[in-house]
């Protein structure tokens, strides 16, 4: 038996395509957890990163926080919160948010801080308001880097969201946890394949986004 047999067996079993434990349901759950976590992390990380980057202050504090957050083991945090808070979605979401904030925050800060100062100087010198300088001069140029931060956050969240299954929530992690428990390796491999597929889909999505959201003038500069 090779891994491909497991995969084909898992996906060809029609029982896996229906019901509350079917692949569509599990995928939707997984995406839901990931989106909520990423949404919260973005809502915190983007504005803070943009502002600190724009004013060029707070970089050290940010780096410190980010390192600390990175050092937290997601799984340990999950178990701890589960014990403390009981059965709710929060113990699942908090580790994911904690995981996603550092890459978003740090890259956004770095992206804005390292924007060429000359156009910013020119923009201020022509009487452009602060907010416009940030959103119309710095952001468009910083966008590729900001998107790459969001992308690595998204990939980490999508892969880590499997841990929700350990505390009896859904998502494709369900197959892995249940499969391990039932010694059903077909299920384990199927679940892992779905996680990998989601990660790849995330990559594709971000590639498309940077295609459409980033100006040709900025993309051109990055090519040698």
């Amino acid at each position, binding site marked *: 038996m090779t891994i491909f047999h497991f995969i084909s067996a898992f996906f060809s079993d029609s029982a896996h395509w229906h019901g509350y434990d079917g692949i569509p349901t599990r995928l939707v759950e997984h995406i839901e957890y990931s989106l909520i976590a990423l949404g919260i992390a973005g809502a915190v990380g983007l504005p803070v990163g943009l502002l600190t980057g724009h004013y060029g202050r707070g970089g050290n504090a940010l780096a410190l926080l980010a390192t600390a957050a990175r050092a937290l083991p997601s799984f340990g945090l999950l178990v701890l919160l589960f014990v403390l808070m009981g059965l709710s979605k929060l113990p699942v979401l908090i580790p994911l948010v904690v995981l996603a904030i550092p890459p978003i925050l740090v890259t956004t800060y770095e992206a804005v801080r390292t924007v*060429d100062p*000359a*156009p*910013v*100087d*020119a*923009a*201020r*010198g*022509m*009487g*452009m*308001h602060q907010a*416009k300088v940030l959103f119309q*001069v710095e952001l*468009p*140029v910083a966008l590729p880097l900001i998107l790459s931060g969001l992308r690595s956050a998204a990939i980490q969240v999508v892969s880590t969201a499997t841990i929700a299954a350990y505390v009896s929530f859904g998502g494709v992690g369900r197959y892995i946890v249940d499969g391990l428990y039932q010694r059903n390796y077909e299920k384990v491999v199927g679940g892992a394949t779905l996680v990998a597929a989601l990660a790849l889909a995330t990559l594709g999505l971000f590639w498309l986004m940077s295609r459409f959201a*980033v*100006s*040709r*003038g*900025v993309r*051109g*500069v990055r090519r040698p």
Partner: protein
Amino acid sequence: MISIEAVSKRYPDGTVAVDGLSLEIPDRSITVLVGPSGCGKTTTLRMINRMIELSGGRILIDGEDIQHKPVNALRRSMGYVIQNAGLFQHRTIVDNIGTVPRMLGWSKAKARERSMELMERVGLDTSMAKRYPYQLSGGQQQRVGVARALAADPPVLLMDEPFSAVDPVVRRGLQEELLRIQSELGKTIVFVTHDIDEAIRVGDMIAVLRTGGKLAQYAPPDELLSRPADAAVEDFLGADRGIRGLSFFGTEQLPLERNGIVAVDATAAQVAERAADLPQLLVVDVDGRPLGWADAARLRASGARNDTAGLLASGQTFRLGEDSLRVALDCAVLSPTGWAAAVDGEGRAVGVVSQEAIARAIREAHGRRGTAPVDVGAAR
């Protein structure tokens, strides 16, 4: 008129960048701030549009204190051009140029039309309108920078080393372009450079600053070259300031030897009519354009006889009345005979002049300067 009155700038770390500087910057002319690195040129310029707040003194524009104006309104009334152009790389050239008009609420179409007009004005092909900055050369980007600063037709233009990031040939072209645009638009321009040659080329008035942000001298370029205020300014102007000062003298007064020219098909008899005391004659073609120098004695013996093989190269020539004494002297120095050939607008030879005659003319011109001021504009 921009009046800088006893302005000082002390940075938070204690550096005194500008110290009690007073300058009257006349309207519709180019005033250059020049001086060694770190003497406070950029600081002074940026205090005019309040990118840097002053720590003492005041700056008035047409009598109104800039502190009393809303800062963004003040900046929109002044074009601002910086060293590397500082273009917005995510915007096309038209959109870059149209930035301030759009900020002022112009319609897209009107801003676009204005951008196109400005591209032409600064010598850019309008087919580049849809390009992005990375698709332009450094010199072209700088032109876009100037166009962007001119977009809303501000009366004042502040330029901080706008041409120093491009190579000397391109820089020359941009300087000439600036002078041409200025002759059409008549802006009040404050121009910062650390290059004294550039200052002399573009400036109507030159303020030389010294380290510590003090004014060393404020004068028109010819006066600066001929009467530096002190040894430091003299040193800054360089060893050849006398030669460079000749740029401000015209060639109209040069005593030309109009008889020193002979046609390539002239006979010995015709040559004999030429000035007998000249050691060599300038041989010209049938249209009167210089071909080269020939030994006068040989020509008198045999005529020119269409013989161009034995001629010494005529080298560079100067346009009479248009080129400066500096160019004429340069021609004479470079000439194999020590004589310079003067031509008219069509390139036809009108006369020849020796190094000695040019040197005499220079002494006379310096003598005249005391009484009659030199027309600065004519020298360019």
